[in-house]
């Protein structure tokens, strides 16, 4: 026997058996690869999430580009140029109503009855009527043109629908039917020329409007009844500025070109920075992220403001102050809170919390709080408070871990120097575990941003950027969120439509936001950990 043979025999004897091989793999290798394959599932799923969100959302920017270019070509953009000053003007007349209401209240307070007050406001009403009438021609023109361009847009849409149908017929192999299906080529140049010539009436109308405004405001300024009213003064200033700015609209209308191409970047920007999310509208659909993003952030900020101090206090209390008995109760109890399903919390918000908060806000002696009494039962505050409940367990358990991981001799050294427990806590324990605490807060924030059911049920679902000009009461406004909009609208949209793809784009943004938050949390833990031990 050669040495090699001897070794082989020896090793076979030691191992107890010869190993069967299939495709050069022993059974052990097979098991190893099997387990390894399962371990890669996590990576595969992450990639698949990206692929399938991307697959469904990818066409969005292209479709939005078409959407925006139809908006331009069919002349909707042109009419919107006129609509802007008209809406501003509507704002002015609304301001006028406020002024009247204010004056009316003052008159009532001075001891007059309603009839006398109305009589005293006669001159004011005449002024209001005069002001309201100046927009007549321009408004009429705008609404006429609105109908014209809407009709053009409808024709474009019908043509696009027919194209789609033809493609589907082709795909199904029904070539003859596909050929028979004719779609109209809309001649934009002709349509726009007609619209522009009709819009020639805008110049005289707007000039008349400006002149009328100037006359009305000048008369009001010199009139005796208008003296000393600060609100009216503000309004008059606004009206004068409006009259000065009005000719600019003509300049913009003259500079407008229907055939100016809409670049792809515009489509992306309209999504990322768009201030409006309007769908299924008869005029123009907008898919802008900002109202959803700001709603999500507002709710998350409220939640974090409530949750962070409470959760960190809990963590400090449990790990440093509580007696072992308390600890044995509090820790599992908070774990229990984390098990509450979010839809139950949402239901609690609708059925109980919203009503409680609103009736609390209607209590007379709490009216000094800005924003009270609140008008809506379901708003950012309701959702934020409940989200705080969902994020407290997350932040608590991670922060508690971080505190517990501080080595014991840090603490002992501090005590040995004569520090009290509180001093040790503030000067030693918290700094030593700060990176863990911060990453706990970040992960809690991630959880809040991604939470769906609570915001869907409790945030009020009004798609608008919170109005921070009104100060704190912005926190009591209903908002809509990124997660909420997906959950709400996904069930109702047609597959493959631009709206459908827009929802997937929102999903992609959520996905990346969660990755980024996770990444920062891990970086914080690694980079700022005080070397322990």
């Amino acid at each position: 026997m050669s040495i090699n043979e001897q070794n082989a025999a020896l090793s076979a004897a030691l191992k107890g058996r010869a190993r069967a091989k299939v495709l050069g793999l022993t059974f052990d290798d097979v098991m190893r690869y099997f387990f390894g394959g399962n371990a890669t599932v996590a990576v595969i799923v992450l990639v698949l999430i990206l692929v399938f969100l991307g697959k469904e959302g990818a066409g969005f920017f292209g479709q939005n580009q078409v959407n925006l270019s139809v908006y331009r070509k069919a002349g909707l953009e042109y009419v919107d140029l006129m609509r802007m000053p008209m809406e501003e003007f509507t704002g002015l007349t609304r301001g006028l109503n406020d002024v009247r209401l204010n004056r009316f209240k003052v008159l009532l307070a001075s001891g007059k009855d309603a009839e006398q007050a109305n009589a005293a406001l006669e001159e004011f009403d005449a002024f209001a009527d005069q002001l309201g009438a100046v927009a007549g021609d321009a408004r009429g023109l705008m609404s006429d043109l609105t109908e014209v361009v809407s009709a053009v847009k409808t024709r474009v849409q019908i043509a696009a629908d027919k194209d789609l149908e033809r493609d589907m017929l082709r795909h199904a192999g029904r070539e003859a039917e596909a050929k028979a299906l004719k779609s109209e080529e809309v001649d934009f140049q002709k349509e726009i020329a007609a619209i522009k010539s009709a819009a020639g009436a805008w110049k005289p109308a707007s000039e008349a409007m400006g002149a009328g405004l100037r006359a009305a405001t000048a008369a009001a300024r010199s009139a005796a009844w208008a003296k000393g009213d600060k609100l009216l003064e503000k309004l008059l200033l606004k009206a004068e500025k409006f009259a000065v700015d009005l000719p600019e609209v003509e300049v913009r209308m003259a500079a407008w070109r229907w055939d100016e191409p809409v670049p792809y970047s515009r489509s992306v920007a309209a999504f990322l920075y768009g201030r409006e999310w309007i769908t299924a509208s008869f005029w123009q659909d907008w898919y802008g992220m900002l109202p959803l993003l700001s709603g999500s952030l507002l709710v998350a900020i409220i939640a974090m403001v409530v949750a962070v101090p409470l959760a960190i206090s809990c963590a400090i209390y449990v790990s440093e102050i509580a007696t072992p008995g308390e600890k044995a109760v509090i820790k599992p109890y908070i774990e229990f809170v984390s098990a509450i399903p979010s839809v139950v919390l949402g239901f609690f918000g609708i059925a109980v919390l919203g009503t409680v908060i609103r009736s609390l806000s209607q209590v007379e002696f709490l009216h000094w709080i800005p924003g009270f009494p609140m008008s809506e039962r379901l708003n950012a505050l309701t959702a934020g408070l409940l989200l705080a409940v969902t994020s407290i367990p997350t932040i608590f358990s991670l922060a508690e871990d971080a505190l517990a991981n501080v080595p014991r001799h840090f603490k002992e050294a501090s005590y040995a120097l004569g520090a009290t427990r509180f001093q040790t806590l503030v000067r030693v324990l918290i700094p030593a575990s700060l990176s863990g605490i911060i990453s706990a807060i970040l992960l809690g924030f991630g959880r809040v941003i991604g939470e769906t059911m609570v915001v869907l049920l409790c945030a009020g679902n009004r798609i608008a950027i919170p109005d921070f000009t009104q100060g704190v009461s912005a926190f009591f406004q209903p908002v809509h969120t990124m997660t909420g909009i997906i959950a709400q609208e996904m069930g109702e949209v047609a597959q493959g439509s631009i709206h459908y793809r827009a929802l997937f784009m929102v999903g992609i943004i959520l996905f990346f936001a969660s990755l980024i938050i996770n990444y920062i949390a891990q970086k914080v833990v690694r980079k700022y950990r005080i070397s322990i031990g």
Partner: protein
Amino acid sequence: MATQDVSNMEVPPPHPFMRPATAAMRSERRAFNVFRMATYSVLLAATAIFGVIFVKGADTIFTREFPFVNIAFLIESPETLHVFDHEGQHHEIGDREFRKYMEAHANPTIAEETYVYSAGGIFPCIVGTFFLVVGSMAIALFVGISAAVFLNEYSRGGRMVELLQLAILNLAGVPSIVFGLFGFGLFVLFAPIFASAPDPSHLYIPLGFGYLNFTGWGVSLISGWFTLAFMVLPVVITASEESLKAVPKGFREGSLALGATQWEAIRTNVLPYALPGILTSSILGIARVAGETAPIMFTAAYVVRDRLPWQVDHVLDVLFQGVMALPYHIYVVSSKIPQNAYTERVQFGTAFVFLGLVLGIALSSVILRNRLRARYRW
């Protein structure tokens, strides 16, 4: 525990030689009271939520007479509630009874109010949730335990393992609604189905003996299973890894020294000791799977379905049918029907059952974990 001896020193009883409280001690006491109040306010808020739902839900679930539990609510399907006054009597009855009543009284014209889903019970939702949980946990446990075995037993560190760990960590942070979208895109719309004829409007792969049509599984149990399983995967992997780590190294080494292969060592000397721990820790995963609404909204849940999951024409249809689920039902009854005395019954009742179920699962996880810790000590 030894580590607490320093931090939890009891305040000694007052005596004449006691040092007067310094400013530092006073501020310490104040600060600790603030922490204590914050902690107890959190506990109080949580108790308030539990309390309201349990007290109000108990009205629906429990009755004053024998058998003290409202069994009808648990074993019936949801129905529309009809509320009306007829012949001087006030009636609040479900759809089936209402039809009988109308027949018996020769279809009188009455002014009635109707509330959908407010009568009957929630049996189909309980069943649906059970089906969803069992299937998705089976998938998640299989994949998750295998992955953990690889990470803890086979892998020797390096780039690959780092990547895997990073992926698991990130997967845990992905919002549940994104999982819902993903499940919708992949399983509902794209997943392959075996068929005898190709479907030209979708991608298909000829197999020789048939075709794989990528038509998607539709809104179905199986779509929900996979979506939920992938969502809960990080929880299961982390739990499994911890339990595997808790098995002492000597167990493996002893077995290897006796000539066992690595798989034999794992099968005989690691998994049997780790498995109880894995399963109990994974119960928390069950609570998560049962509690999530967003991932099943577009993948598995129906608002209403007359048939129960086992009432199907073909065995395979069990997989390819949508189900009603408790969390989705709560969403529907709390957002789609008005809030009043008639609808409150089903709303709070469903919330009670659901919360009780999920908390029961979580509680059993905590209890089992404590027992296991007491049993295995090495």
